[in-house]
């Protein structure tokens, strides 16, 4: 659907998109190389990234990049991700949301409660992966009990992160049409904003009273429209 420029609002700034994709691509690399080490039938995945010795070297290093980007993302979105009273209502209607009966679902702010849960789940999983990953990285620097526990924690956190990622990719790429463009080009249609994040859109509209109505207030200085 071709949108005219005045129909678009900025959903994610350039910086937000870059941080998101650094987190996304590093996590994908970590997941695929991690799967290669987790379960032998997936060892062939190591070949896609240069073979076993190569992924052994790069997996932890990419992990550090992932964690740094994840922390930046956390700080960047912490305010918008705070739980609000409406989120409780939203979660009570998550079934309707998932089955397309979205008229029964209350309006969301910039992020809906599902996105917020995903955000916190990925953040906690990331921190657990970091803590246990450092132990696996330098096993001889740690005691046996801690090392053994770290394998279990690393696996569980990775499995949780993988589950969340599957839901996230499915929702963002396949279900919510327009999300992909939001996270790549940065903008969404006014209609999209109104439908998916009604409270956010109204706040945006209420705040932007300048002559260039398509330019929302949230654009930080120096950031383009994408």
């Amino acid at each position, binding site marked *: 659907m071709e949108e005219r420029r005045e129909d678009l609002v900025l959903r994610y700034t350039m910086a937000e998109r870059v941080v998101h994709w650094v987190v996304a691509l590093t996590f994908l690399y970590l997941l695929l190389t991690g799967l290669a080490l987790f379960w032998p039938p997936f060892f062939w995945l*190591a070949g896609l990234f240069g073979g076993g010795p190569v992924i052994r070297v790069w997996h932890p290093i990419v992990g550090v990049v992932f964690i740094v980007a994840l922390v930046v993302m956390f700080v960047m979105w912490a305010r918008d991700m705070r739980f609000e009273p409406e989120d409780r209502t939203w979660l009570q209607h998550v079934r309707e949301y998932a089955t397309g009966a979205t008229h029964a679902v209350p309006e969301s702010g910039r992020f809906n409660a599902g996105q917020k849960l995903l955000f916190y789940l990925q953040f906690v999983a990331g921190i657990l992966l970091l803590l246990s990953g450092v132990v696996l990285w330098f096993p001889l620097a740690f005691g046996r009990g801690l090392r053994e526990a770290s394998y279990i924690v690393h696996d569980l956190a990775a499995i949780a992160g993988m589950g969340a990622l599957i839901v996230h990719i499915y929702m963002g790429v396949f279900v919510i049409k327009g999300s992909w463009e939001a996270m790549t080009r940065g903008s969404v249609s006014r209609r999209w904003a109104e439908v998916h994040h009604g409270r956010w859109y109204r706040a945006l509209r209420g705040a932007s009273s300048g002559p260039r109505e398509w330019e929302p207030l949230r654009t930080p200085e120096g950031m383009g429209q994408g």
Partner: protein
Amino acid sequence: MPGPAMQVKAVSAAPRTAAGVKQVPEVTKLIDVSVCIGCKACEVACQEWNDLPVDKIRSGALGTYQTLPDLEYNFWQLIKFNEVERDGRLLWTLTKYQCMHCKDPGCLRACPAPGAIVQYANGIVDFVQENCIGCQFCVTGCPFDVPRVSPTTGKVYKCTLCSDRVSAGLEPACVKACPTNAISFGTRQKMLAQAERRAQQLRADGYATAAVYNPPGVGGTNVIYVLPYGDSPEIYGLPRNPRVTFVNLWKGPLKWLGNTVLFGGILGAVLHYFRFGPHEVNGKGRPEDRGTAQ
């Protein structure tokens, strides 16, 4: 291939039982702690036979005769000198320490690299460095803390039980070098019987708790000990009940949880798409129309 004894019967990151492996007697090394005099001839023989450069001896800080504080990637066996108190007396234990060649090796089960760790038909567990990726999962997988990574090659090394010598019908270098016959080598059956006889003898001599160390938590080991104080293997630097519980958890329930989440998640997403499809926002309808699934 030097004969049926060196056929591979188990391989890391691969189905556990290889087909067509002939039944051959397992070999076992027996270490009789009660007659070890700590001469370290076995250490020298190991370094010499395996062409391992002798490292600078760094035992000074410990204040013991021990050659090095611990095993290293180029130092595969070490006499541990421990001073412990037992029944109000000082006890000085000398324990030859190296890979235990477990019958159910935790290193092999933890290893994610196909073919990096193998178990031969005769029970020897060997590392194949060409296939090793340097992840060091074996380091944690081993309940005896034996494998060591080389900082230069990034590969992991350990005692091979002189698999090259054994395949040629020779005994391991350490066995050959031992001047007091504290180390014996032969078929597992023979060594177990010999160990049991020796433990019995020690018990008759007043070591009431003398026992054979052949821990069942790893399916038994192909390196066994006769310990005069068999009730406390810790004083010899040996774990009381070595287990690989975390590998079992990982290769058992966690593997299935991971598979369920991965394949279940993808399948669930596909089915959800078929049933409910995407959520599109079309046209410029009024807010009241929002949320109609297309």
